[in-house]
């Protein structure tokens, strides 16, 4: 456990000293959402109708943006070889790095989302659910993304390949995430959607590190 926390701490420290990834993801998220009123027009009713979907799609894209770097630098500077030879199982390394990635890029999105919801004139009834869905949903994005990031290591134009691999897998998260918010706004209970999201999280939590570690073993060979 101590080693696991060390691993998380190292990645957080790297991310904070480099500073780029966290701010870029949240800036991208905000800009992406802000573009919509320019595109579809400032009609408050239309914006309120599409707010949940827009915020969720922007969150998917923003989390994708920094995923390419998840294992890339460790792969290039030889750290990944040493990590795979360390006494910490590679699966735990994947969980630690994914957790650090989520703390750095996912949490700022959750904080920024309610402000963007106000900007898009979303019904206040949906705010709580919006935060809740992002809280359950963004870890899923990081976890699924970690598989893609591990698989595309060493590939040319890995970032583009990563998007093609991962975006289709994000669809269920998008459906239940946006669905829960719509349900809350229309006075229905968001519970079933949230439970399904939680179910996806419970499924990806053991599966993604396992698949990611297998892909990393291939990459260091």
């Amino acid at each position, binding site marked *: 456990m*101590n*080693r696991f926390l*060390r*691993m998380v701490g*190292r990645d957080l*420290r*790297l991310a904070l*000293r*480099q500073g780029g990834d966290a701010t870029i993801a949240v800036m991208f998220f905000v800009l992406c959402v802000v573009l919509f009123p320019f595109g579809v027009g400032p009609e408050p009713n239309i914006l309120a109708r599409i707010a949940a979907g827009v915020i969720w799609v922007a969150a998917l894209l923003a989390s994708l943006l920094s995923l390419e770097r998840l294992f890339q*630098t460790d792969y*290039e*500077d*030889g*750290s990944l*070889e*040493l*990590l*795979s*030879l*360390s*006494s*910490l199982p590679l699966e735990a390394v994947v969980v630690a790095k994914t957790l650090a990635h989520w703390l750095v890029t996912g949490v700022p999105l959750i904080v920024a989302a309610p402000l963007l919801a106000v900007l898009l004139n979303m019904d206040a009834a949906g705010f709580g659910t919006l935060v809740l869905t992002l809280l359950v949903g963004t870890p899923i994005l990081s976890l699924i993304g970690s598989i893609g990031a591990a698989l595309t290591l060493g590939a040319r134009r890995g970032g583009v390949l990563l998007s093609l691999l991962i975006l289709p897998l994000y669809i269920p998260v998008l459906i239940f995430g946006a669905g829960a918010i719509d349900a809350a706004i229309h006075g229905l209970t968001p519970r079933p959607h949230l439970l399904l999201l939680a179910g996806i999280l419970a499924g990806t939590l053991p599966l993604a590190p396992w698949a990611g570690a297998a892909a990393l073993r291939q990459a*260091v*060979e």
Partner: protein
Amino acid sequence: MPVFAGSELTCLRGDRLVFTDLDFSLAPGGALVLLGPNGSGKSSLLRVMAGLLKPVRGRLSWDGATVADDPDAHRAKIQYVGHLDAVKPVLTAAENLAFWAALGGAADPAANAARALDRLGVPHIAGVPGRYLSAGQKRRLNLARLLAAPAVLWLLDEPTVALDRAAIALFEGLIAEHRAQGGMVVLSTHTDIATPGGAELHLDDFTPYADDEHPDDHHHEGEDAP
């Protein structure tokens, strides 16, 4: 005391057979120097020994117990130094090293790291971020890992690249000390690293066919044994 051995190792990279039917054995205090021209499989053999690369045939063992049956125990026994230095540019030298020491299970990683940097003769770089280190300093930092997170078997892939003469002499002393304590060393090199009493393994002996691309290139390198 444990004996590390490999038998009938065969390694395939892409379609190319790098070496075949390779046997070696290493007793406590022993050293094995891998020699051979470029492309003869020195790095591949070290990666096979580390467990990074799976041999298509053959087995590695500690005292007869197959490594593949208990890879975790094997990983706890080795320290691998490859071509890449694994130095993070935004972390200081001491932070870089302390992380690897902690991952290796050190009780007090920071103290271990400081001591190891001291032994490698570079205590002054402790607070310097990785991006300001020279190639030689990075290499020393990487070698300091061997001391900060001790292991029985050192697997060193051309460890003296970028080192100056004084550092090489210092490093030879560390190897001798490690062996005196019952440690083992496998290293590949193109320069002389003194390993008194160490065995030599000429990898071109295990290449299935002569290198038909550049028969004369690099051939002298097999002869500059210590």
